[in-house]
């Protein structure tokens, strides 16, 4: 077979090869993102995502969306720019959450016996769907960053509240008031995570009374927009095609 001949002999065979490549590329993308994104998110979001007693209404709401919009922005840039495929965000989040659940179930529960209701991951799927839909409908990265990035930050807390609310029911214990999540953190001993490194309810956002979660979400949303732009360009840079001149070879 010469170099000018096709590797396939019929249209049906071409379609079959194309589909096989589809699955191979998708599988590779999914697992590569699962690994890379998971490490990134564990290093930057870390304890906020690990433990129910870190999931507060200020810093968790602020930090988690900002550090998690990264890979979705980059992968969206690649999949939309090259293929007009609007699933960059959701494929990242599905990969991340699969990895997180494997980690939480097998490691946190299976090896070290922390109850799953104490170490479940945050839910990022609503924001990912909105991010993909905005990109698809607008076909604009600017609008996706502004509207999608804003939505990403804003829907994070509502998307997680049904999961964490039962753990915010108060309880009296030995003469002090706790939430059930606080008590989980106290009961289930973490030798390497002393109480003082728990960054919850810190900051100067004191003029909004008890309604600080929406304010934190707005701040997170604004920063998410900026981070989206930054990581979008990382994505563009990573999937660019460079040609070199033959003269130098």
């Amino acid at each position, binding site marked *: 077979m010469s170099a000018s001949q096709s590797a396939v002999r019929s249209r049906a065979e071409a379609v079959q090869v194309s589909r096989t490549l589809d699955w191979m590329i998708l599988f590779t993308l999914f697992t590569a993102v699962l690994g890379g994104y998971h490490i990134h998110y564990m290093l930057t979001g870390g304890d906020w995502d690990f433990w129910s007693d870190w999931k*507060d209404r200020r810093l968790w709401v602020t930090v988690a969306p900002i550090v998690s919009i990264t890979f979705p922005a980059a992968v969206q840039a690649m999949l939309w720019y090259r293929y007009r495929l609007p699933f960059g965000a959701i494929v990242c989040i*599905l990969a991340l959450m699969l990895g997180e659940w494997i980690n939480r179930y097998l490691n946190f529960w299976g090896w070290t*016996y922390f109850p799953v209701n104490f170490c*479940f991951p945050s839910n990022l*799927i609503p924001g990912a769907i909105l991010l993909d839909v905005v990109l*698809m409908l607008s076909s604009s990265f600017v609008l996706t960053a502004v509207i999608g990035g804003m939505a990403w930050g804003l829907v994070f807390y509502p998307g997680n*509240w049904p999961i964490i609310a039962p753990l915010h029911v*108060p309880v009296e214990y030995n003469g002090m008031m706790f939430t059930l999540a*606080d008590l989980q953190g106290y009961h289930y001993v973490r*030798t390497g995570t002393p109480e003082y490194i728990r960054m919850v309810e810190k900051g100067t956002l004191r003029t909004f009374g008890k309604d600080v979660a929406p304010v934190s979400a707005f701040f997170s949303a604004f920063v998410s927009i900026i981070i989206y732009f930054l990581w979008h360009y990382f994505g563009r840079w990573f999937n660019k095609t460079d040609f070199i001149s033959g003269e130098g070879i």
Partner: protein
Amino acid sequence: MKTIKDKVAKLSFVALLMALTSAMFYTPTASAHGEKSQAAFMRMRTIHWFDLDWSKDEVAVNDTMTISGKFHVFAGWPETVDKPEVSFLNIGIPGPVFIRAGSWIGGQLVPRSVSLELGDTYEFKVLLKARRPGDWHVHTMMNVEGGGPIIGPGKWVTITGSMSEFVNPLTTLTGQTIDLEDYALDNVYFWHALWYSIGLAWLIFWIKRPMFIPRHIAVTSGKADTLISATDKKVAIGFAVGTLALLMYGMGSTNEKYPITTPLQAGLMRGIKPIEMPETSVAVKVEDATYRVPGRAMQMTLTITNNGDSAIRLGEFNTASVRFLDADVLEDESGYPDDLLAEEGLTVSDNSPIAPGESRTVEVTASDAAWEVYRLADLIYDPDSRFAGLLFFFDEDGNRQMVMVDAPLIPSFI
């Protein structure tokens, strides 16, 4: 010859594979907590644990035990470690094999970080409820912000029974009785499964059609706009609207189901009460101190002055949780961990009672393999070569007095 060589090579390869495979199945339990690796000066010059009592050696799942005792916050706290202004009374166990049902310093419940004062002595108690069967090394521990975990002595405790029987019942302020072990777990699984399914549906909608090569060809040939159909847009709008609707429903139904919720509780606890230690009537001056490396022994020249009204004898030197006792004066009856107890490890050149008003200079030797086993000998490699510890004196009636010593240490290599 070649056949034999081939056979040897093949068998060697098989043996190598078998060795590797069997090595994978050998997974011994890692039960230490790095207590021996912690810098010796950290253990000698920060928190001194004493009078410790592990209430049980064996405990059944759901039963409780306590660790109680005292700790002295060393006044000569090392410069390289942040002061214990933000500290947390922890417990050194391999994960939640017990739950910490309560912890107190000076009678005050301390679920949060506390501020400790240098030079003060505090009483503490930790209540543990057994959760996971096994043999566990249970340590006292104080986490200090900017200093890290400062681990105290550990003792083996056996938990019997089955973890499946463990329960952690609580009654909330809304009157609901729950088991915290699996409370709201179904709710966690439900919402995650629901959202994951929706996300997966969005992905499947796109990946069921040809993806990369045909679409790339279309994009590069200027037909990108044809790749998104009107139906695609309708489906996308459906997903977006559905997502927003589910979010609103989730918020509404949750607030209806849990009308009373509070924010996470946090904050530093100050004003923890120390023990009112009686004024000591014994004065100790460290004239010199050397550590003899080959003999695993520390020698101190002490000038002891008895300002009290009863004769005293030196019974114990306690440093980094290792207790060196003079068996003629003191016998341990607390069940202190054997590896940290040198029952005859303290030798005093003249340990006859020091009469009231008398001042005597004596040679005190603390020797035991623990210096090496617990890597306290590594003190000579620390940047600030000083030692510290507690001396316990006993009068004729058996009353005890505690004196803190802190002095430079000179190593001796011959």
